[in-house]
């Protein structure tokens, strides 16, 4: 079954369409992507899901946002819907209530996701949810669940490169390095690549990602690699390897740059309203959003409900 080793990939025309019809400037779009993927990772930790589940949620979100504008739904709702959907289909389902609590906490002022030097003092009032809050969240999340499935034609299969990378390392005899060191470094590259706004997981197959991560880990550790074109054994050509090696190494520098460009983005959970403010500041119109007034009305209704 090829589906255990390979993923469906974005086509050039899909990528082109996304780039040309984007509602957001490219740097903002990338910042939103990165922030939301980080949020999914944090939620995965709090929901005590293994990385194999959370990473699949990251990939589903990337696939979904290739087709739909990120501005169509609140970012955290999309993140929640992907992680809920993936966990539901896997061996460790999580209840909507658990997901709701975790996202309420992460979105709150009390959240430890945004380090402001020291850990904030736990204040349950900051993330307390009323029944109405929960109900509204659940409705949005389940609506998005159906929406995500429909726009992916119900194909939820995600093959991750992590197990492949370990197998490859075994065949390379761990490059004569301590097993845990080189494995850890490889996995770190793979996990970081999940956050890359270049959307590496939907443009490259797991075998290529695994090989590039091993290459990077080996370089970092000064490990001796085979002298032949060993990546061809893993069905990766030099060009693709080169691209991925660079792409994976560049994430860190890009993150640094992001922090400088959008100092406010890292202080709180990234919401659509924050992005809209940023666009206003730049004098840009928020494109194709005819549902703004309805949202405000919803907001008022919600506030009245939770009284």
């Amino acid at each position: 079954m090829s589906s255990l080793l390979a993923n469906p990939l974005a086509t050039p025309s899909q990528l082109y369409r996304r780039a040309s019809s984007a509602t957001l400037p490219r740097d903002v779009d990338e910042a939103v992507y990165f922030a939301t993927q980080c949020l999914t990772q944090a939620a995965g930790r709090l929901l005590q899901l293994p990385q194999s589940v959370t990473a699949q949620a990251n990939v589903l979100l990337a696939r979904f946002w290739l087709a739909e504008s990120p501005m169509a739904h609140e970012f955290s709702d999309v993140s929640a819907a992907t992680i809920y959907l993936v966990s539901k289909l896997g061996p460790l389902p999580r209840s909507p209530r658990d997901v709701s609590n975790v996202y309420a906490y992460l979105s709150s002022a009390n959240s430890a996701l945004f380090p402001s030097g020291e850990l904030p003092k736990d204040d349950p009032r900051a993330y307390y949810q009323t029944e109405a809050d929960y109900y509204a969240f659940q409705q949005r999340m389940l609506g998005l669940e159906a929406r995500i499935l429909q726009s992916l034609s119900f194909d939820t299969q995600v093959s991750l490169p992590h197990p492949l990378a370990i197998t490859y390392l075994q065949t390379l005899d761990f490059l004569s390095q301590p097993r845990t060191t080189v494995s850890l470094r490889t996995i770190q590259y793979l996990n970081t690549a999940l956050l890359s706004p270049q959307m590496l997981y939907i443009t490259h197959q797991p075998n290529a990602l695994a090989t590039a991560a091993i290459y990077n880990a080996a370089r970092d550790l000064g490990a001796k690699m085979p002298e032949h074109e060993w990546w061809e054994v893993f069905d990766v050509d030099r060009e693709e390897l080169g691209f991925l090696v660079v792409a994976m190494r560049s994430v860190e520098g890009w993150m640094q740059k992001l922090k400088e460009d959008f100092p406010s983005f890292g202080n709180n959970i990234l919401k659509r309203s924050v992005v809209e403010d940023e666009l206003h500041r730049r004098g840009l119109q928020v494109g194709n959003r005819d549902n703004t007034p309805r949202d405000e009305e919803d907001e008022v209704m919600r506030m009245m409900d939770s009284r």
Partner: protein
Amino acid sequence: MSTKPKSRWASSAEDAEYEARQKKEKEEKRRKKALKLQEEEEKKKALLAAATTTTSQFAETNDDNDDAASSSSRPSKRRKLTPEPASNNTSATLLRFDVGTWKPSRSVDNYDKLNDIEEGTYGWVARATELATGRVVALKRLKLEAGDPNGLPVTGLREIQILKNCRHRNVVAMEEVVVGNDVSKPDNSIFLVLEFVEHDLKSILQDMPEPFLSSEVKRLLLQLTSGVAYLHQNYILHRDLKTSNLLLSNRGLLKIADFGMARYVGDPRPKLTQLVVTLWYRAPELLLGTRTYDAAVDMWSVGCIMGELITREPLLQGSNEVDQISKVFELCGVPTEDSWPGFRRLPNARSLRLPKQSPLASGSVIRARFPNLTAAGASLLNSLLALDPEKRPSAKEMLEHEYFRQDPKPKPESLFPTFPSKAGQERRRRHEPDAPGIFQGRDKEERGAGFSLRMV
């Protein structure tokens, strides 16, 4: 021994010349390789240098419009296989998967409904044609509970996930998933587009005046088993095998259908529910409430189906769980620590009061119940209906069984009789209990006679 004289031949002048030539060629190759390695080393350096420069570039040219364009053109470039001039002489063939991409589900409006086939506990099935091609398909609508706090039913999503990954001639093929037109609604209808197969085995068995010939039984069983072997090999448990879930085409091709109960059992091993398999086909370990079970539960069902194919009647028709397990013990004998080590430790076995029986009467009566079955057939049925799941053969082992090699040989599919299609006009009938589980409470089940079984 015959090689020895040959080796003497080797030391001829011609051979020496040949060897010398080879040696020379080898040396040349080695030299070329060294050269290539050198080149590569340089390239690698260049690559790394490029890496560091692009990193900084990437950060600088963030706002650049060119960047946006290049991001869209990059993947297509990457996917292309441009062989490096240096690696031309090795020209490795790299494995590429043809996987495609994702796109939104199409609308159900692409199909035109012809007639209903059946409406069961788990959904509604209709015969339909695809408007564009005129092809006849089966449309199965997922049953959605409006306002379900858990969203789309996990069983339906699993069925889709599994069918998407399955490709086997004895497993019903799913072509796509189409949706209704209320895309924004969470309870928008979802339809599985399945290949249309004319009959289900249950209706055929009910309507046929004469039972299947043993050559036909063998062919049907072989097909069922190879489908089950495929599923198990891919870590899928079907968990609801029964004759009404087996389809038979007019060309004698059997297909396993209805994966509403199926699921992947991989690693980490998921917590499995005991509320699976239609009562009459449910394995004794499930009836006794085991918390860990495996592919052997499907093999028990295969055994029940084998019996049903021979007699045209479901083999074990219990009216409730207690009645079911007593019928199982009547047929297969009462378990002992010898015949099923450890069965006493199963949750429901603790409160089980087994009838006092003479040791003679506690054996299996399968042989007596199927007097016309050959010795090989009886031994197969006996092993499938072994109380101890460990003793049942795997689907793969079953395919190798003596029974299928003995005369009469399995009848070729093409020689199967055809049956009038029910799906064309009327609905399929259901005269059996449905699979349990998530949708049905089992609290109504009563206590049977003979011995008691407490339901927890």
